[in-house]
């Protein structure tokens, strides 16, 4: 293989990796506040993208995306208030099962609202045929948008969870909800807030990847599985690690693809997930002690 070809494979890896990463970020927010995995995260992405596509018929693209993010944020809040909050004696497992139910509900609702057809947002820069050439290899400018938006989200989220009062309160709820409540944190609203935040970020992610992946009502589940894999790989709760892990998985898949039949790449990513779960449950970038404490 010559250099441009190697770089081209890397770009293919970065393209899918950036999609995995931006999906994974959403998982981390709700996990950070509640300790649960929101399996409806993929549907938040699709709702966001679908709304933006519909709004884009009437308003310019940036406004359409902004409106879609706002509406999806509200939907995220409503989902929490209507479904999650009502559960008495909510164990983590029970809540996770409920999120699976929510994902099915949202998928069916989307089928009725938008029908079964594939749609997509226009490319943010250029069109489907424009490319950026680096070292003799080509990449779609939209991939750079995905990477850029992921970076901005992570750069916003990391300090938010570390340094702001609200962010720290949200994390406290995940660690020990009773203790957080005793400290005067309104834990219910923190959970609602986390659903709103991750729905909003999911919607933004859905809009940014829509030109690349296209958008269909039932795509959420398969996107979410990859995003979930990446979130685990990086270490749940750590958005920066999720981006790193996403790009890594994308690159590994591209590497596998370059040497073996394409069909093997899915198998490889599942094997990696299993290995991580067995040998490093805290994820590649997570701290062992924290995972051990959480397990207690």
């Amino acid at each position, binding site marked *: 293989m010559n250099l441009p070809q190697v770089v081209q494979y890397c770009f293919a890896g970065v393209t899918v990796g950036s999609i995995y990463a931006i999906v994974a970020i959403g998982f981390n927010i709700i996990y950070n506040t509640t300790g649960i995995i929101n399996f409806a995260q993929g549907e938040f992405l699709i709702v966001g993208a679908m709304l933006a596509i519909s709004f884009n018929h009437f308003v310019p693209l940036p406004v359409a995306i902004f409106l879609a993010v706002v509406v999806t944020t509200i939907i995220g809040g409503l989902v929490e208030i209507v479904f999650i909050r009502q559960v008495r004696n909510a164990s983590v497992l029970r809540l996770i099962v409920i999120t699976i139910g929510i994902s099915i509900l949202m998928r069916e609702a989307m089928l009725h609202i938008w029908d*079964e057809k594939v*749609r997509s947002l226009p490319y943010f820069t250029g069109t489907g045929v424009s490319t950026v050439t680096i070292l003799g290899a*080509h990449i779609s400018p939209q991939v750079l948008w995905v990477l850029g938006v992921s970076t901005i989200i992570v750069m916003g989220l990391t300090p938010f969870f570390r340094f702001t009062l609200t962010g720290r309160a949200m994390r406290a709820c995940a660690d020990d909800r009773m203790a957080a409540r005793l400290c005067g944190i309104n834990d219910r609203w923190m959970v609602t807030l986390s659903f709103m935040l991750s729905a909003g970020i999911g919607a933004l992610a859905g809009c940014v990847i829509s030109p690349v992946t*296209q958008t269909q009502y039932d795509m959420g589940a398969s996107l979410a599985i990859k995003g979930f894999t990446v979130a685990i790989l990086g270490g749940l709760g750590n958005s920066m690690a999720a981006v790193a892990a996403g790009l890594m998985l994308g690159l590994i898949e591209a590497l596998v693809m370059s040497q073996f039949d394409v069909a093997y790449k899915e198998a490889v990513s599942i094997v990696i997930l299993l290995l991580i779960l067995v040998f490093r449950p805290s994820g590649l970038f997570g701290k062992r002690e924290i995972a051990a404490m959480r397990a207690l």
Partner: protein
Amino acid sequence: MGKQLAKVVGILIVALALCVSVVAKAADAPAIKVGAIFAVTGGAANLGGPEKKTAEMLVEKINKEGGVNGQKIELIVKDSGTKPENAISMAKQLIEEDKVLAIIGPSTSGETMAIKNICQESKTILISCAAAEDIVNPVASYVFKTPQKDSDAVRRIFQVMKAKGITKIGVITSNDGFGMAGGKQLANLANLAGITIAISEAYDKQETDLTGVLTKVKGQDVNAVVNWSIVPAQSLVAKNMKQIGLNVPLFQSHGFGNIKYVQEGGEAANGTIFPCGRLLIAEILPDNNPQKKLLLGYKKDYESQYKEDASTFGGHAYDALLILVEGIKKAKSTDKEKVREAIENIKGLVGTAGIFNFSSQDHNGLGMDAFEMLTVKDGKFVIYKN
């Protein structure tokens, strides 16, 4: 006393109403039950959606015009969600509980192959809307299909390639029934046409980006790429090829026959060459084309009723019903065996996919001329000219 009288009168009225409804029912001949299994949701929703709408529209029209041999048709539609396992349980339900005369659909080759034997063993006529040749080869006496053969599609593609001097190609297919069957036909017929397949890869049907697999194809210095799939990923192929600078002609299968895929492919879809039935180009066909009138009629009805473009796939369901109705008419009966025999004897029936000439050996009834080579120009389908 007054109350009691009211009660008696009430009961009488109800009884009378019941009698009337029974009489009204008896006057009608029993409806002919026809099952339909379409992938209205799931990966092949772009196929199943128009198929269901078309079948419902056509049945309504037939019933309004007095039905077949004086009997109305009762269409029972099931949504398989593009899952072969669902198709199996739905086929069993239709056969055993609803006792249908025939099943039209399923939409995809994988689903059809899953229920081929079930229908054959229970002697229920199956008219599939899926493309793979395995459906009618080897022939099962009760199983028919309406879309053109994929081997004919491959032959037409290779003809064009020869004319263009293309000798070395890369093949990518989706990893579902349609893609696999097409890949097999391409491999079988390439030698005969003097074409080398330098690389052949299957990708996941839910793939959201194909730059990786296309990079691999690019590494083989091919003269052209053939993509064989019915899933939305096919509009990614054209875009991804341009994005990685793989500037060779792209050939698609007849699964590309939906203007929606062209719209999604955008600018990149221009120049894509693919074989297809004549529905998509009905307006620009010469007036003496025997299919033109039927195609325009179907298109007009569909588009005015559903406010969306008609697609080839809806046409497959149209043909399936057309063939079944013709069979029932010819058999003058709803006996499964008689209708089956009548279908085998249909000759020169003009449908949306082509002109059907069935025989006991040919359960597809279409020839290579059922395909027209099309290409995309400025986001529209036009007839391909060398």
